[in-house]
């Protein structure tokens, strides 16, 4: 089921009412059944996959916990990983892998043909696979206890708000919330509705309308575009994907909140970042931290410990060989890219980010990390980091690497800065959106708290903002496009 639809609004209303009416035990069953119905509205034939993932990890984690012998524990972990990654590989990477093997064999003169495979990518598979992996790994690491109640575990895995496009949740964050039911508070519903309105506004008013400009721009012949066009398109797609994905997170967080369940935040004004490290602390936070805890740190052979709270901390070993750190960086980011999609463009996108994080590390090493925040330096850093981060979206959106190269090559020829190759509106819309987004960040950071203290002004302001958002959401609420992250 798609969030930006009337069907979802009705579904959510029923789910929330029944959840609060029913006793906890039935409430959880309702959430599992409701989530499967939610998923089945897209394609019911993939529901068994979800159930398999839930059963395998539920069973494996209990087996891991029962055993003390490390080898035996490891066998069950590997078994779970094989099943989860095997399913993911089949549905997401088999065609890509086969194409590349055939291409490589052709280079060596062996002409092989593969039969035509029509594999449909199940929605949300990358998200729920990562969630189930993290759960089993956490049990293996003894950071959490295995869940003995299957319905509890299944609820965590298939819970509809996060099922299709995250946030990538940790069992330690959600399972305790599912075991008990909070006392109903108005605030849950009000905060939830507000987050959903914000999310729908970002999706149906901003992202979907920006998409028309982006689609039109990327449909043009890249050789006819100017450098300014490339920059504009990268900013526009950067804004579209941000609004689109953060919209999903807002709606997911809001939907869960209506049932008194707290999801972690997934975005925090990423385009206000003044470094690449900061960018990744603000963008798709749940995935970045997952990658850090379950890929980057293990590759670096760093001991990972539970911080006792919701997330996982880590012990960084200062004696860690530097090579390991850099290898881990590039390897992790390549996998991060590949997670987004089975295409070289995504791998390139990952390596692009790894390269700039690497460069940033070198700069910090050379100049030392700035101790005090200096606003002038922050602005300069922001002005450098954001265009580079935006340009990383080119391979993300371009269909092939060759188009990516053509587009990037435009940036290095001064002549390409002397003309415009798209309709004028796109430049105006891009500049305005970026300006207002930056203003909103400054307002939220420096003004909002002071305003909220002034009761009547904040009331008028909030009512005005929500009235406009409700009218626009009401007007534009149409499932004309899926969320971009559905394809991952």
């Amino acid at each position, binding site marked *: *089921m*798609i969030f*930006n*639809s*009337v*069907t979802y609004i*009705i579904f959510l209303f029923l789910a929330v009412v029944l959840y609060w009416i029913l006793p906890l035990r039935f409430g959880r069953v309702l959430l599992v059944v409701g989530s499967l119905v939610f998923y*089945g*509205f*897209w*394609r*019911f034939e993939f529901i068994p996959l979800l159930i398999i993932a839930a059963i395998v990890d539920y069973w494996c984690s209990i087996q891991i916990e029962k055993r003390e012998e490390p080898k035996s524990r490891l066998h069950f972990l590997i078994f779970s990983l094989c099943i989860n990654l095997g399913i993911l590989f089949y549905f997401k990477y088999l065609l890509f892998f086969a194409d590349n093997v055939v291409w490589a064999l052709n280079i060596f003169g062996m002409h092989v043909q593969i039969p035509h495979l029509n594999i449909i990518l199940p929605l949300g598979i990358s998200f729920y696979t990562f969630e189930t992996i993290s759960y089993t790994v956490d049990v293996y690491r003894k950071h959490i206890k295995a869940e003995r109640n299957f319905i509890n575990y299944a609820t965590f895995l298939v819970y509809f708000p996060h099922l299709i496009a995250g946030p990538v949740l940790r069992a330690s964050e959600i399972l305790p919330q599912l075991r008990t039911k909070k006392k109903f508070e*108005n*605030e849950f519903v*009000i*905060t939830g*509705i*507000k987050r959903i309105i914000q999310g729908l506004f970002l999706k149906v008013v901003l992202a979907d309308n920006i998409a028309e400009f982006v689609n*039109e721009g990327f*449909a*043009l*012949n890249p050789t*006819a*575009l100017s450098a300014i066009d490339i920059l504009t398109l990268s900013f526009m797609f950067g804004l579209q994907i941000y609004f689109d994905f953060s919209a999903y997170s807002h709606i997911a967080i809001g939907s869960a909140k209506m049932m008194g369940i707290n999801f972690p935040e997934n975005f925090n004004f990423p385009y206000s970042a003044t470094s690449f490290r900061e960018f990744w602390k603000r963008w798709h936070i749940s995935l970045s931290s997952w990658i850090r805890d379950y890929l980057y740190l293990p590759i670096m052979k760093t001991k990972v410990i539970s911080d006792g709270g919701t997330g996982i901390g880590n012990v960084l070993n200062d004696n860690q060989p530097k090579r390991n750190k850099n290898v881990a960086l590039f390897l992790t980011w390549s996998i991060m890219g590949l997670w987004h999609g089975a295409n070289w463009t995504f791998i390139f996108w990952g390596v692009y980010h790894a390269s700039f994080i690497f460069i940033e590390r070198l700069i910090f090493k050379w100049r030392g990390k700035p101790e005090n925040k200096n606003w002038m330096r922050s602005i300069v850093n922001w002005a450098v980091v954001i265009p580079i981060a935006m340009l990383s979206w080119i391979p993300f959106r371009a269909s092939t690497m060759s188009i990516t190269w053509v587009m990037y090559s435009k940036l290095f020829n001064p002549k390409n800065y002397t*003309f*415009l*190759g*798209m*309709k004028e*509106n796109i430049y*105006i819309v891009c500049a305005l959106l970026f300006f207002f987004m930056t203003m909103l960040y400054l307002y939220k950071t420096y003004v909002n708290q002071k305003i909220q203290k002034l*009761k009547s002004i904040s*009331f008028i302001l*909030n*009512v005005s903002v*929500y*009235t406009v958002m*409700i*009218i*626009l959401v*009401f*007007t*534009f609420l*149409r*499932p*004309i*496009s*899926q969320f971009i992250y559905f394809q991952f």
Partner: protein
Amino acid sequence: MNNVLKYKGLFELLVSFILALVLVLTLFHETTNFENMALGVYTKTYFGKVNDTPIHSMGLRKMKEIIKGSNDRALKDIVLVLGNSQTHSINQMKKGDITFPELLADSLNKKSIDIIASSVPNATMEDFYLLYKSWSSYLNIKMVILPIFLDDTREDGIQTVFYNEVKSFRISDTNTLARKINGELQKTESTATTDLAALHQTFQERTENSLDLYLDKNFIPWHYRPNIRGQFFSDLYKLRNTVLGIDAKTKRGVIKDIYKENIKALNYLLDDCQSKKIKVLVYIPPLRNDYEIPYYRNEYITFKREIEAISKKHDAEFMNVEDAVPNKYWGFKGTRTFRGLLDIDFMHFQYPGHIIMADSLQSKIEKMIKQ
């Protein structure tokens, strides 16, 4: 005080919802025809008829009636007139005014030449290609009249909304343009409405469609939604024009790639006509010259030369009628800014302009049909 604070959020939301509903009901209750909004209040559309049977349609609307009418008339030669809003609009229209396709039909039908016309606002060459292929697959077209507007080469793709009536139509050619257009038509055909594009072939497509229809019938504000959307974009457009000082006189430049795509489509169309021995009259349409034209002179000159060269290459007749309609037969349109009332209309002329156009085309058509 604590209770007030406790319910502050709820109160805020309730007031917002009520205000939103009141605003929707009071501000947006009129239905505007956004399709013709760009024409302004002084220009009206007119689609020609012969003996009460339509001969001219917006896109492919009324296609069946037009084909039936043509078959009933059973005239020897059929001429297809393509165009944009210039073809189906009259500035300062008075009772009894008609557009040039009907004027042509009135005089040419007697000479056993049938006229059918098909036009869409801001028609791209891809639109023309699709219109031409559609009509020629149902009627034995002898000649095509093709106006090329520099303004419209800034637009790209096809405007599927004008082809809904023949969604199942596919171009039989295998060239890239035909494949692209067929893809667009396929997308339009396979989705219940474009509003549900994301739900294509899912169970939710059915529920959402039913809910949408139910709300449209039973919840008045829901019915206004397309109108509010149109109003919203129209106001944004006006705001842009007001802030940036854009009006009808503002120069609009050629957008290289979109222009190229249009020229490519034109070449496909002319290739097809040439191979089927369908005569083509390409013309540079009238443009008022009492004001500085809204194009860059050098681009306009290059454009005219290029169209002439392409026409010659395909053995098509070329005619430049840019000065044919005297300045007194043009007019004004409502401004599309928040300032002032009137703006210059560079696209739509008055009824005498249509008479002049019909005269200019009539002799040319007769001559070419006889050849």
